């Protein structure tokens, strides 16, 4: 039988390998808001709430997804990864280190979303051109860095397949 949910519902979300109970929330709650306000995982940011800026990017079953265009309830049974899960140790992951080294962030507001997109890109690419990296980042706006250091940071972790610059 179909499941009907009206005013409030409870479910479990699996985030960064941990199960979190989400109790008594309305079905309309966006995944981003559930992560931020209910689970207090505030690393995932909201910059537009209409799918353009990418600040809310998280991984759902290893794919990058806008958490502002997904309901929390739609993430039941999925594997969600957020910026908080990139490194569970004291040290930073190689990706985070590369961002630090290359000055790939300024205000840091876009950074969590950019990192999640980059995680996916690195998993699926061993080599890449600058252009490919730029296109992969097209769904993550950054207003501070001009992207160049972000591209440099990501390229430092793959084999650079770009030809010589003109």
């Amino acid at each position: 039988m179909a499941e009907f949910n009206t005013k409030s519902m409870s479910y479990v979300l699996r985030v960064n390998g941990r199960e979190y109970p989400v109790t008594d929330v309305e079905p309309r709650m966006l995944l981003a808001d559930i992560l931020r306000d209910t689970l207090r995982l505030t690393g995932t940011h909201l910059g537009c709430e209409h799918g353009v800026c990418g600040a809310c990017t998280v991984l759902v079953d290893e794919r990058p997804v806008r958490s502002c265009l997904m309901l929390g309830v739609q993430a039941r049974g999925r594997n969600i990864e957020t910026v908080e899960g990139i490194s569970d140790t004291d040290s930073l992951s190689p990706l985070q280190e590369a961002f630090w080294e290359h000055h790939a962030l300024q205000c840091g507001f876009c950074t969590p979303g950019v990192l999640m997109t980059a995680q996916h890109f690195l998993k699926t690419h061993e080599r890449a051109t600058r252009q490919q990296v730029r296109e992969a980042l097209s769904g993550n706006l950054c207003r501070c860095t001009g992207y160049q250091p972000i591209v440099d940071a990501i390229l430092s972790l793959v084999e650079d397949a770009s030809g010589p610059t003109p």
Partner: protein
Amino acid sequence: MKPAPFDYIVPQSLEEALGLLHDLIAQGVDVKVIAGGQSLMPLMNMRLATPAALIDLESLSGELAYIEEGNGLLRVGPLTPHYRLEESPVIARACPIITEAEALIGHPQIRSRGTIGGSLSHADPSAELPLIWTLLEGRAILATKTGQRVLRPQEFFISYLMTALAPDEIITEVQLPVALEGVGQALEEFSPRHGDFALAAVACQVSLDEAGCLRGARLAVGGAGPTPIDVSEVLEGYRGEAVTEKLALAVANQMVTHLDPPDDLHASREYRLNLVRELGRRAILKSYQRCLRTTDV
């Protein structure tokens, strides 16, 4: 920017989804289905759409997300997300223009969740999949609780963001002809930024006869009117002729006489026509060259 309240319904089967849709509509409930949510959710967040009930089709992915090829037909489940089309070897072989198009649709994050069924149903005249579906004269199977019908693009698209879908109807399959050996396809589009909806787009498919002259000819334009527009007749007029720069230009010039795009924030009518002309020329030549590459003329 948060959605208004709604009842959230997860059906267990297509049959059940259709039944619920039917019943709720009959009760006068403003109900909508949601697939990937990549068009509907922005509208809901902005409260430009405020459905009272939402039937989430995602639970039907087992049933309705597939890519199958057989008997010259490509059959795609409506819930197939963009990224699966993008990565599918079957698509790359049977309908390479879709592979080409997918790279231009939004961004990786959008392609993770947006679906082909949602894309057709949303009916943005600039969207790539509606354009390709129009170009190839595909079919869509639409189902209600009581029955099914099959529509062609010209019947399906009515106007800007408007389709022939009845409120209690769901697309249950999208069909496209498999590109035959020797066919060349190309998509040319122009958008302000990478991943934006195109200001204008032209898709073309050609095949050649033994003499290397034009035989099959399909041509369609996106972003230049309320729906994707099939202008194949223009190209058909040149059947049997050699595909040259001159022909491409002539077709492109003729093509725009069939169009009446609006002015909007991002482009004037004039400029859109200019783009269509240029993109048309390129698409024709590119599909021709791709033809040459695959045929041993």
